[in-house]
């Protein structure tokens, strides 16, 4: 590994988590009410994958981070104004719907084609990053599907840590049951890593990085090809917000002793 990694991060926009979401029916299938108006953020898991990519690229000279994103062009532009301040990246944008009800297989076809078309793509240096979950479809499958289409058969999900070993092998920690990590060592790229949230903090905004990124980001958005994706062969029988309202009993004037007794009794009940 002398020339650095080509780290390709797949990620798109999702509604800001603080927004209340309401489904509506459209001719194209289910969607969110006022979806185009909802404030958006980069999907939290994809964002973390991006930060991990930048962290790794900073440690390995010659590495480059490319964010491949399929979403409505206007939303991508809005979100990139913030994301581009964080880490050095190159954007490849695809103009299409980013809603959760689109089919992961259709999205994967578009994303895999975009990755294959990256200039100078070198499988021997390629690390495909993304989130192991998303805050929209939340299926955790798109990254694997893209990996399969790229014939990458070393895949890891729920990744919390990557470390480059002497000789270029990569030690990878994946979340498994019981709050543990499975530790694997892969010989090197190519590999697919679906990131959990790891332990890296979100990088602070850096206006210099932002200015450098935006010189490439704006043209990338302007030339974003249309990438229509739909719901494939899915027939949605119903789409609804679950009824979750509970009658909360508010206990205001009880002493800590009384509360503790009540809670211990409650805990002890089968």
């Amino acid at each position: 590994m002398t020339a650095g990694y080509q780290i390709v991060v797949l990620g798109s926009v999702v509604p800001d988590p603080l927004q209340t979401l309401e489904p509506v029916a459209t001719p194209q299938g289910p969607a969110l009410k006022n979806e185009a108006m909802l404030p958006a953020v980069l999907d939290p898991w994809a964002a973390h994958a991006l930060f991990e990519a930048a962290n790794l690229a900073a440690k390995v000279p010659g590495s480059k981070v490319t964010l491949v994103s399929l979403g409505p062009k206007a939303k991508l532009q809005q979100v990139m104004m913030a994301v581009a301040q964080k880490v050095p990246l190159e954007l490849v944008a695809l103009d299409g719907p980013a809603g959760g009800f689109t089919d992961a297989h259709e999205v994967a076809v578009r994303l895999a084609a975009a990755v294959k078309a990256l200039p100078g793509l070198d499988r021997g240096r390629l690390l495909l990053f993304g989130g192991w979950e998303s805050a929209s479809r939340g299926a955790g499958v798109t990254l694997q599907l893209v990996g399969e289409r790229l014939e990458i058969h070393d895949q890891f999900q729920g990744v919390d840590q990557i470390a480059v070993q002497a000789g270029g092998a990569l030690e990878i920690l994946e979340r498994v049951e019981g709050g543990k990590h499975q530790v694997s060592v892969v010989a090197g790229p190519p590999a697919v890593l679906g990131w959990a949230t790891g332990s890296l903090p979100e990088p602070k905004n850096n206006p210099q990085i932002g200015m450098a990124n935006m010189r490439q980001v704006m043209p990338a958005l302007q030339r974003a090809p249309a990438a229509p994706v739909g719901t494939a062969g899915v027939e949605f029988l119903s789409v609804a917000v679950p009824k979750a309202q509970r009658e909360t009993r508010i206990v205001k004037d009880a002493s800590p002793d009384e509360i503790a007794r009540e809670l211990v009794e409650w805990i002890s009940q089968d």
Partner: protein
Amino acid sequence: MEDVLLLAPVELDGALPKGALEALSAARVLAAGGPVQVALLGASVGPAVQALAGLGVAKVLVAEDPALADGRYASDAAAATALAKASGAAVVVAPASSRTSRVAAGVAERIGGRIDTHVAQVSADGGAAVARWYYKQRIEAKLRRKERPWVLLVDPGVAPAARAEGGAAPPVERVAVSIPPPRTEVTGLRAPASGEQTIRPEARLLFVAGAGWTKKQADGKPHPERAEGLIRGFLRASGASLGSSKSLVDQAGEGQKVFAFMSHLNQVGQTGATPRHPKGLATCCHGEEPHVVGWRFIRERRAVNLDPACGWARGKADVLYVADAFAVMERMNALLEAKKGG
């Protein structure tokens, strides 16, 4: 009526994995009276095959190889693909786990099928249909697909575990698998560095600590050491599993005091886990919608909080105690210890 396959990697000791019998019940529902086959993969699957006796399984397909002892994408994908193809099933059901979640989408792609995950409910009225969550447990949809094969990862609790009703052991067919030379070596499992396992999936209680534990208290000072002692004491005395709000685990990255026994693995909510425990107790949590999603599958919920208008607790918890969590926890720990001692 659909031909349905239950696909399950076995445990290291060859036993059926947790959740396999629930997934088998789900497979039976989807089969709507049609045959259900089971495919097992692992280094040695004997105990799992024996456990399937009397469960009405039409046939057991088996892929055994030392390379299948650990969950590894390349080998698991090769074996699961061979098993799914050999079964000819239209619907492939697998219990959701870290191992199946890693590989199921790749298998769907290889067999020319489609996949849906986090399946929370199955039915066969008018054809196989499933319910699953979107937008991180905030919207629920019921759907069916035209495409086959259809791979489904079913969440725990999707159906009651299948029970043996007597009858002969199912016939076993070995499936040859060509496993590619490994580029990945699984070297083992690593537990949290704190030496104390605080994530206990089998616990009856989820205890969630929020960022309030590290904030200034009534005397104008934070008391993180006291908080740490109270939380650890409660976990030991109650056997609860520990969850955390995002704001608390994020403090490590922001240079603030963070509890040594807590990591992002403990995080519940929008970007964390959505654990399943019968009861949940939240303390010092002030999150709203993002936090609520982490509680979607907790049946009984109580909270201790100084804010009677807390957006997370009102309407989401069954009981909100407006009180100082430090004082309440101290007394709870004493009561639990006394109970143990008595």
